């Protein structure tokens, strides 16, 4: 029997990293929002690695923050170690990564949700979606309660028909023994949604007291900590940090693994889901990279109030007895006591090609989705999709234009475009190599790129927006000034250059020329630049980067201009591809299924050739012509 519980503007299913961002965005835009979770104790839970950020993922967090999302602020309040990765490389690949206190992270996020107006948090399992006339009208919980809504965002993570495996043990639960959501899948299939089954895994957690750290290399955080959020005052995050540790597997570890491969559900064929290649289990690594005699392991604390240590690099689905044996071959883990077993987890997710780049289902109006449900992996990938799905659900209800970030604007745009356009057969992870224009998409300029959009949406305050405009103005002004400053070959200049092992000047050059020298930068040239105005470090950082890498940046800007031409050629949503003559069959099928929004997106679909694009362009012109005449 069902009964009507309540009516909301937006229902968000799942309170993981995607669901929290989606719900916060909707509520902050003034919509009545309810956020369902399987357990009130697992809000924004981190069931795998205890960190936020990392290569290219740090970029995502910065972008979430610039759009008005919560992840950056939340980790700034709860991190216990922080590091800027790739510092010796170019600014495009600098990436922030923080170790999180998992419990604190989760509690902090729950508290934020519970202090947000228009937002209701509810423990219940959503079992059905209610669709009328190709439009979402509500959801039903397992207990029979019906919740009417105008839009719904599905962020079910790894919970749909989840099962955890190690050896021959199969537990029909979500991560960490939490209840799986076993009913929603049927309702989705009944509504014509195509499902995939993916797999991922996690290593064991080991009791810190049983670890001999003297046999490992200690890994410290950065001396000067940079916060994730542009709103966090850097002075407030200079905390005492905890350490991580580095150790290695060895030939003995590998022997044990090889001897027991037949007992892994991955190799015996019990696991049906497709696992991620970039996050291989230790058994995968030993098999695939047989020539490597050791693999790195990172031993990381899970929080300040637990003695659990995460053994990064050694996820596995081998049986418990093999896990004990293999972990104990590792230097420092000889007497390891396992607190939680390593396991693989299988779950239902969707073929994200069913979504528009707005993250709305093409065949069900008002139904949006984000996170691992869309076939991605990682907390940051989930959060940014949740944010975009939530924003667009709100935009639809408010009758405003939905947002789509393109590949030249953000990593978020690259991620979503890849998910909804390309064929994806494994959990999708963000990587810097996926971003074509990464020199322009730096973590240090995420605010300049996206704050104006966040402000337009209504998630960024006027004050914050004004500062970004002002910052932009100051940067441009200073770049112009620096190009005009002539530096003569005088005694003072030569002395300064000598102190940085830089070749002395033969004749006068511009200040910009000196900044471009690898061994010099904007800051260190201050003594020979007497007219330099006093500027915020955020401004001078941008000035330095823009001048230093000017040639490369200009080249990327040209590529972007070319890219934009095809992105701006829109394809009408109601275009009938059967009416387009000369399209090849494969292309016609793909285009019909994917319904790309513009020519650029169409050209990235695998199976659509440049000839098909030509045909489509020609047809679109005549289509427009017919419409206008």
């Amino acid at each position, binding site marked *: 029997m069902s009964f009507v519980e309540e009516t909301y503007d937006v229902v968000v299913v799942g309170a993981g990293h995607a669901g929290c961002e989606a719900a916060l965005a909707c509520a902050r835009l003034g919509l009545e929002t309810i956020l369902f979770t399987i357990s009130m104790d697992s809000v924004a839970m981190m069931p795998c*690695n205890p960190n936020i950020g990392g*290569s*290219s993922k740090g970029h995502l967090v910065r972008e979430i923050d610039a759009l008005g999302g919560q992840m950056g602020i939340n980790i700034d309040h709860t991190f216990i170690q922080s590091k800027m*990765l*790739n510092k*010796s*490389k*170019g600014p*495009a*690949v600098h990436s922030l990564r923080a170790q999180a206190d998992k419990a604190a992270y989760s509690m902090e996020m729950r508290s934020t949700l519970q202090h947000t107006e228009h937002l209701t948090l509810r423990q219940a399992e959503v079992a059905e979606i209610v669709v009328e006339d190709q439009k979402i009208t509500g959801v039903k919980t397992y207990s029979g309660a019906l919740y009417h809504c105008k839009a719904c965002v599905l962020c079910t993570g790894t919970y749909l028909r989840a099962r955890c495996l190690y050896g021959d043990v199969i537990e029909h639960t979500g991560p960490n023994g939490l209840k799986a959501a076993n009913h929603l899948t049927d309702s989705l299939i009944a509504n014509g949604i195509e499902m995939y089954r993916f797999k991922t895994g996690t290593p064991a957690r080991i009791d810190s007291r049983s670890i001999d750290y003297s046999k490992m290399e200690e890994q410290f955080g950065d001396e000067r900590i940079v916060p994730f959020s542009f709103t966090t005052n850097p002075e407030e995050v200079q905390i005492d940090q905890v350490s991580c540790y580095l150790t290695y597997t060895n030939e003995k570890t590998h022997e044990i693994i090889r001897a027991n491969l037949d007992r892994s559900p991955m190799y015996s064929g019990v696991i049906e889901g497709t696992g*991620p*290649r*970039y*996050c*291989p289990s230790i058994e995968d*690594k030993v098999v*695939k*990279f047989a020539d*490597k005699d050791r*693999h*790195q392991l*990172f031993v990381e604390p899970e929080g300040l109030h637990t003695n659990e240590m995460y053994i*990064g*690099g050694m*996820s596995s689905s081998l049986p418990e007895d093999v896990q004990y044996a293999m972990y104990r071959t590792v230097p420092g883990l000889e007497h390891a006591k396992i607190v939680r077993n390593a396991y693989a987890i299988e779950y239902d997710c969707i073929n994200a090609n069913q979504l528009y780049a707005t993250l709305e289902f093409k065949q069900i109006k008002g139904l949006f989705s984000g996170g691992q449900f869309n076939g991605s992996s990682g907390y940051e990938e989930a959060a940014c999709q949740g944010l975009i799905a939530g924003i667009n659900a709100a935009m639809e209800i408010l009758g405003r234009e939905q947002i789509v970030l393109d590949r030249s604007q953000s990593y978020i745009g690259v991620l979503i475009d890849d998910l909804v356009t390309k064929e994806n057969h494994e959990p999708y992870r963000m*990587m*810097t*190599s*996926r971003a074509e224009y*990464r*020199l322009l998409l730096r973590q240090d300029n995420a605010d300049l790129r996206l704050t104006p959009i966040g402000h337009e949406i209504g998630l960024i305050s006027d004050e914050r927006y004004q500062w970004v405009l002002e910052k932009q103005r100051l940067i441009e002004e200073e770049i112009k000034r620096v190009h005009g400053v002539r530096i003569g070959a005088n005694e003072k200049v030569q002395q300064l250059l000598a102190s940085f092992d830089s070749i002395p000047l033969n004749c006068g050059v511009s200040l910009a020329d000196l900044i471009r020298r*690898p061994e010099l930068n904007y800051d260190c040239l201050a003594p020979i630049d007497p007219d330099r105005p006093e500027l915020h470090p955020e401004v001078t950082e941008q000035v330095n980067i823009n001048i230093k*890498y000017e040639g*490369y940046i200009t*080249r*990327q800007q040209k590529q972007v201009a*070319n890219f934009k*031409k*095809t992105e701006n*050629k829109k394809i009408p949503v109601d275009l009938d591809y059967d009416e387009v*003559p*000369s399209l090849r069959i494969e292309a016609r099928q793909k285009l019909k299924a994917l319904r790309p929004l513009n*020519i650029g997106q169409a*050209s990235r679909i*695998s199976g659509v*050739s*440049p*000839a098909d*694009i*030509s*045909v489509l*362009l*020609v*047809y679109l*012109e*005549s289509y427009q*012509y017919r419409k206008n005449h």
Partner: protein
Amino acid sequence: MYRTDTICAIASGMTNAGIGIIRISGEDAIQKADQIFRGKTSLTDVPSHTIQYGHIVFENQVIDEVMVLVMKAPRTYTTEDTIEIDCHGGMIVMQQILKAVIAQGVRPAEPGEFTKRAFLNGRIDLSQAESVMDVIDSESSYALHNSMNQLQGLFSSQIKEMREAILYEIAYIESALDDPEHISLDGYKEQLLPKMDHIAKKIRHLLDTKDHGSLLKNGIRTAIIGKPNAGKSSLLNILARKDRAIVTDIAGTTRDTLEEQIMLQGIALNIIDTAGIRETSDVVEQIGVQKAYDSISSADLILYVVDASTALDENDLKIMDTISNQNVIVLLNKSDLECITSEDDIREHLDQTIIPFSAKNGNGLDVLEDLIAQRFFSGEISDHNEIFLTNARHIAALSNAYDSLLHVMDSISMEMPEDFLSIDLMDAYESLGLIIGASVEEDLVNEIFSKFCTGK
């Protein structure tokens, strides 16, 4: 991908007609053409729909005397600014002008691209839409077919090899960037430099033989040598007599060598007919013989004619000794008569390809032509109409790849961080990919996962 940059192509068809037309269309058409045009007035200053007389000058050399038609948007075929260069109709001239235009940064047009632009810009009537689509459709499948053919060649296997080497390096850098704690780039740049230098040299070599060198641009310098009366002049006659247009007659530097350019399966041969080589006390003849030896040393190809009806003598041995290390095809002439000298007799002294031949009835001529085509173009050239266009595109792509690799090496010497290297490596990889029509992105992701152990 659809683009709206400036494009060019030979518009008159690739035959040796009296007049050739090179068409340029796009935003920068007039300005780009002006960069290689020397006339009374700059093309950018003349009124629309006028004809200008002048010369095409490239790399300080006058290529041809031309008439240039300047047509400004929108009253043109494509509705974009359009230039038509009317030149002398020789293939070599047209190709040189096309190359000069491409060198200004103009892109060789795709098949049917002028027509496509004309339609997209509303120039062609709507009723023609269907047929235009058919044109694009068929032309692109033709292009596809064409590229399939070339896939089998040595050329494309070289391109593939280079791409694989470059992709490996990109994948290595990218995995290190994505997984800095597992994969180190310490000392990497020092290793990369010689590898990139090696590939850049290979590309340079391809460009030299394909473009810069003497072959397509100036023709293959071919010396016909042999003893007096071996049949050298008959060979030249039979080569020239066949229905191939004689492009130019260039008087030799002396009366003793005559240079003649003939087209053979689309390849230009600059034939030097030398004086017969023999020991002589005649001073005038000695000069001729010396010239013949000079021709041998500077030739790309030597056609050595041996008279099969007479025995090898001192003179033959001397010739064979001189040419042993060169690109030689031996023609055993008069093979229709009774053979006194056999292939084996020659092989005792010279390790080169030998073709039985008859200058009298033309036997062996087809074999000779195929052999030359194969030797210089790896069997790639098969069709007059397509080769030059394809080649121009290949050359443009190769030049871009070469420039990108130079950027990589520059960046290394400027101590730029590794992530900057992968930007230009990717450009080089993409440029080479244009030649064999391969896609990029999935390649990289797959390479990263298959070669490097990354991840948490």
